[in-house]
């Protein structure tokens, strides 16, 4: 950051690429005045409002929840919204789109490959009773401990930072990737799930957990502390346990029976009548 106390500025070095106009991506520099607590995302917004309205990126919530603003900032995949410029300790901020993805334009990566991988591991609860799955009649029993087993892995916001940081994904398009493997593991260990066998085809395929080099960069860059590397190692351990029948397969959680003779708490107001029914009436 500049030493000038009056107007501290940093230079944003942004990778630009317009597929219809440019033959190849190029770097463009912008000088941005920095205010206290200013994030990289706010810096980009300042550039768009004051210097270059053609600069394109993707963002939404501005508080590290939606996972839209993943970028390659000073050589590390990060969310632009929860990284303050002052915390980068540099007067030059390099901002590029996430590696391991195609560029749609400027800082917008094409996350389709991430979602394809995610879809391939069936990231939802699977029940053997298909009627029960499609016409649920109640909630499933789940203890606090059973929730703790997977909750860390359920914090994933699908930002793609782990896939951008993964050295295996950099060379292999077929590698399922840390995000999707973690989600496969998250549902496999959910006590309500019975789809472990279906997911195992992907999880333990020749492009699944065994292609992980355990570099651990996915866990380092994850903004939500999901720790995909841990999930992958636990999945490997589970494969060993299953192959040797060391532990019996658990039974999936039962559906809780409907509560009978219930009385509404008078302090809690009744829900409003559904508007769709009102309009029909």
């Amino acid at each position, binding site marked *: 950051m500049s030493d000038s106390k009056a107007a501290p500025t940093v230079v944003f070095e942004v990778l630009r690429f317009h597929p219809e106009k440019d033959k190849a991506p190029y770097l463009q520099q912008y000088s941005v005045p920095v205010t206290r607590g200013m994030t990289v995302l706010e810096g980009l917004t300042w550039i768009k409002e004051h210097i270059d309205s053609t600069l394109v990126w993707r963002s939404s919530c501005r508080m590290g929840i939606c996972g839209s603003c993943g970028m390659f900032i000073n050589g590390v995949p990060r969310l632009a919204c929860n990284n303050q410029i002052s915390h980068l300790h540099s007067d030059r901020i390099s901002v590029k789109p996430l590696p391991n993805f195609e560029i749609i334009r400027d800082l917008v990566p094409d996350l389709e490959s991430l979602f394809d991988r995610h879809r391939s591991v069936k990231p939802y609860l699977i029940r053997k009773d298909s009627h029960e799955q499609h016409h649920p009649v109640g909630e499933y029993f789940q203890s606090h401990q059973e929730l703790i087993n997977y909750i860390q892995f359920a914090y994933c916001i699908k930002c793609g930072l782990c896939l951008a940081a993964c050295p*295996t994904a950099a*060379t*292999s*398009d*077929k*590698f399922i990737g840390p995000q999707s493997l973690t989600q496969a593991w998250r549902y496999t260990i959910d006590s309500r799930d019975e789809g472990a066998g279906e997911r*195992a085809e992907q999880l*333990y*395929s*020749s*492009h*699944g957990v*065994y*292609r992980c080099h355990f570099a651990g960069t996915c866990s380092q860059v994850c903004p939500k502390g999901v720790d995909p590397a841990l999930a992958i190692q636990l999945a*490997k351990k589970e*494969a*060993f346990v*299953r*192959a040797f029948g060391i532990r019996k397969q658990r039974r999936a959680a039962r559906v809780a029976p409907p509560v009978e003779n219930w009385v509404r708490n008078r302090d809690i107001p009744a829900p409003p009548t559904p508007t769709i029914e009102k309009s029909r009436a």
Partner: protein
Amino acid sequence: MRESRLWFWHILSAIVIVFLLGAHMGTMHMNTILNSLGLGSADPVDSVEVFRRSASPVFLVAYIVLLGSALFHGLYGLRSMLFELSLSKSVEKTIGGLCAFAGFALFGYGTYVAIVVYRMHGVQP
């Protein structure tokens, strides 16, 4: 779960290699230490000594196990590296087949040599 089994053998072979290479290092390169314990031989690379060891059933088993472990570990590792190059399924199958063929062929040849030398009963040709 075929890949799980292959990966398990890959890890197991690594452990076996560590122990058997440790034994190799001890026998071949740390003989002065073993001599001081009364376990080593004067010159482990002397041909008489090599043939004497090869005539031992313990060394025969160790040679064959080390050969199998090293071949499996190396070829599975090679296959894993090549699989990371985003190849088509047919190319992957061919690579898998070639690795298996090379593994079995080299294992067969190496085992044959170890058995032939074992049957010489320590006598040089």
